[in-house]
């Protein structure tokens, strides 16, 4: 999502009364989430508690948490903002994001729940050589999660500055440190149980806030969608073009192939995102995993439908012309300003309350997503790398969990350290890159492992590293990093030779191809021995990890 980076902060909530209200609500969010974390910490006893929340969440609870983990501030503020600025094309991201859940539902969620334990690597390591496969899977898990985390953290600095109406760079850095410190606390103390409840609370807040604003927007147009679209088109100054494809994507052939490439990464990436995959371990069985994806599809789908109303509502009701607050923030403030407008306008009590509410929801959203990402990387580090690769003897559960907690602190510190200097860089492409890596490196290995008997250790290692390296290399030499003027991450140089901003259309087939090549070149057939065991386990749940009994 290229919308999270904001060039300058705007005096959104500059009036002292509003700012007090906003800060009180932010504090309330922090207090509630810290209470949840403390409460969860008293129930964490075993590794299954820490990594998988005791596998005792219901399908509906996990569905909410999945939705809470998935709908980042980029979806909440970014998509509605893109619609407000570019009309119909702003809506396209959300369709890929939603359809992707069918891949997760039909091919991945239940089988993974039955055959894995705590991390993505568990499922691969089931019938492969532990060390190489776990190292590869942990590398890609940590890379994907850190890309995603970094994009969220940098966004958080700008966003909170924006919502509080503060321009100072020092304060943005302070916000990044605060967000980082909070996520470390959630993850080290609360583990998966605490993180899950933070995500559930956030999902409820986000859905409630969005329903209220959507209802108020539709009310203004007497629930006539055509009128809403018509006035958005009229106000945008672009007429009917605003409601048609083409304002943002696919202007020439390169752009069209780029859009196709983005579409592929979005639809295939979700089922390979490690922080989404490990959520399926938090339920007692595959049936609950299925229910949680169905819940997630319902919640995410309804949410994205509402962003349509928010985006077109913002286009119709706010000033989105060049130089306006919405335009200079790349759309990020469209939803909060829309909340203010439908609450009664600037200066009114209703407007101030709704604005502060939406700002607090955005803050809760950031916290829930970064906590999920930190937990994912820390789990993979402790469970895959430390316990199964680095240690000569198998560590005790207690030792492994201590390492997981230290890893969370370390990863949090790295994320803070990288996010502060990255504030001025345009790194919003990292989210799209995370999806591309997930689709190119993780999904091929997961699918081959489940459905192709011949697949072996070298196939898994090749597909993971092959997909990971091709996606990252193609992006480094693409226009998003250099050669596209102000829009590139590095503005002073041009070393790009790959024409597309999204690598998926090349790197996803490469990931699958490397998997096939590695398998045949590796020759090893020992992984076939346990394939029947894996398929029985994946399809029937025989011998799968059960819920913790306290």
């Amino acid at each position: 999502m290229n919308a999270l980076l904001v060039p300058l902060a705007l005096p959104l909530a500059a009036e002292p009364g509003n700012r007090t209200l906003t800060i009180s609500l932010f504090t309330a969010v922090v207090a509630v989430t810290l209470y949840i974390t403390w409460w969860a910490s008293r129930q964490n006893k075993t590794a299954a508690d820490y990594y998988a929340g005791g596998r005792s969440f219901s399908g509906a609870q996990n569905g909410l948490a999945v939705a809470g983990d998935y709908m980042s501030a980029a979806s909440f503020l970014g998509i509605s903002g893109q619609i407000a600025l570019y009309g119909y094309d702003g809506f396209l991201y959300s369709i890929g994001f939603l359809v992707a859940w069918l891949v997760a539902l039909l091919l991945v969620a239940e089988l993974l729940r039955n055959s894995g334990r705590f991390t993505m690597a568990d499922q691969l390591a089931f019938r492969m050589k532990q060390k190489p496969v776990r190292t590869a899977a942990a590398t890609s898990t940590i890379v994907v999660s850190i890309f995603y985390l970094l994009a969220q953290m940098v966004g958080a600095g700008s966003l909170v500055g924006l919502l509080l109406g503060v321009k100072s760079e020092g304060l943005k850095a302070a916000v990044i440190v605060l967000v980082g410190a909070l996520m470390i606390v959630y993850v080290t103390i609360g583990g998966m149980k605490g993180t899950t409840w933070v995500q559930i609370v956030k999902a409820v807040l986000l859905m409630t806030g969005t329903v209220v604003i959507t209802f108020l927007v539709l009310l203004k147009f007497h629930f006539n969608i055509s009128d809403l679209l018509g006035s958005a088109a009229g106000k945008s100054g672009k007429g009917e073009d605003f409601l048609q494809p083409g304002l943002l994507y696919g202007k020439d052939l390169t752009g069209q192939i780029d859009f196709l490439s983005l579409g592929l990464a979005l639809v295939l990436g979700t089922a390979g995102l490690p922080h989404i995959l490990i959520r399926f371990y938090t339920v007692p069985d595959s049936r609950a995993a299925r229910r949680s994806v169905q819940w997630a599809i319902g919640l995410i789908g309804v949410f994205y439908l509402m962003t349509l109303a928010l985006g077109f509502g913002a286009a119709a009701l706010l000033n989105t012309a060049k130089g306006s607050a919405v335009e200079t923030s790349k759309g990020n403030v469209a939803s909060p300003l829309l909340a203010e407008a439908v609450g009664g306008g600037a200066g009114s009590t209703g407007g101030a309350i709704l604005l502060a509410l939406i700002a607090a929801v955005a803050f809760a959203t950031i916290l829930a997503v970064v906590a999920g990402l930190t937990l994912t990387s820390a789990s993979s580090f402790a469970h895959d790398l430390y316990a199964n690769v680095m240690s000569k003897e198998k560590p005790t559960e207690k030792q492994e969990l201590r390492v997981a907690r230290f890893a969370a602190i370390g990863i949090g510190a790295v994320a803070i350290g990288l996010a502060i200097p990255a504030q001025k860089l345009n790194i919003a492409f990292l989210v799209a890159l995370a999806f591309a890596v997930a689709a190119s490196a993780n999904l091929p290995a997961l699918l081959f492992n489940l459905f192709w008997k011949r697949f072996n250790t070298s196939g898994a290692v090749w597909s993971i590293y092959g997909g990971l390296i091709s996606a990252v290399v193609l992006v480094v030499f693409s226009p998003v990093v250099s050669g596209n003027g102000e829009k590139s991450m590095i503005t002073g140089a041009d070393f790009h030779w790959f024409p597309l901003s999204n690598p998926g259309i090349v790197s996803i087939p490469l990931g699958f191809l490397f998997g096939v090549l590695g398998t045949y070149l590796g020759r090893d057939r020992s992984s076939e021995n346990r394939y029947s065991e894996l398929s029985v386990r994946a399809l029937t749940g025989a011998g799968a990890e059960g819920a913790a009994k306290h």
Partner: protein
Amino acid sequence: MDEEVVRERDARAYEAVHDAADFKELKRRYKNFVVPWTIAFMAWYLAYVACNNWARGFMDHRLGGSHINVALIFGLLQFVSTFVIAALYGRFANRKLDPLAHGLNAKYKRERRR
């Protein structure tokens, strides 16, 4: 019990389930649902992406005198198809997969005790 013995006993139980007729049926049912539906929703989604690129005339077509056009309807239909396929799969899995899986799961537990 010795770890090696446990592993061998489990492996035998998995093998017994794997050879059961019910397991072959479960696998067949799962594949027969998942493969065609995956192809269908991917084709349907890619058709939508492609139309945004290369069938703009068709997408720009307005319905009646309203501001609602084919592009919006096509996008909304992606939501509808996702909801419908998710519901269909849930129904299918509850009715056709779960009973077989439960039976096989019980068989696995019996085999392990032998």
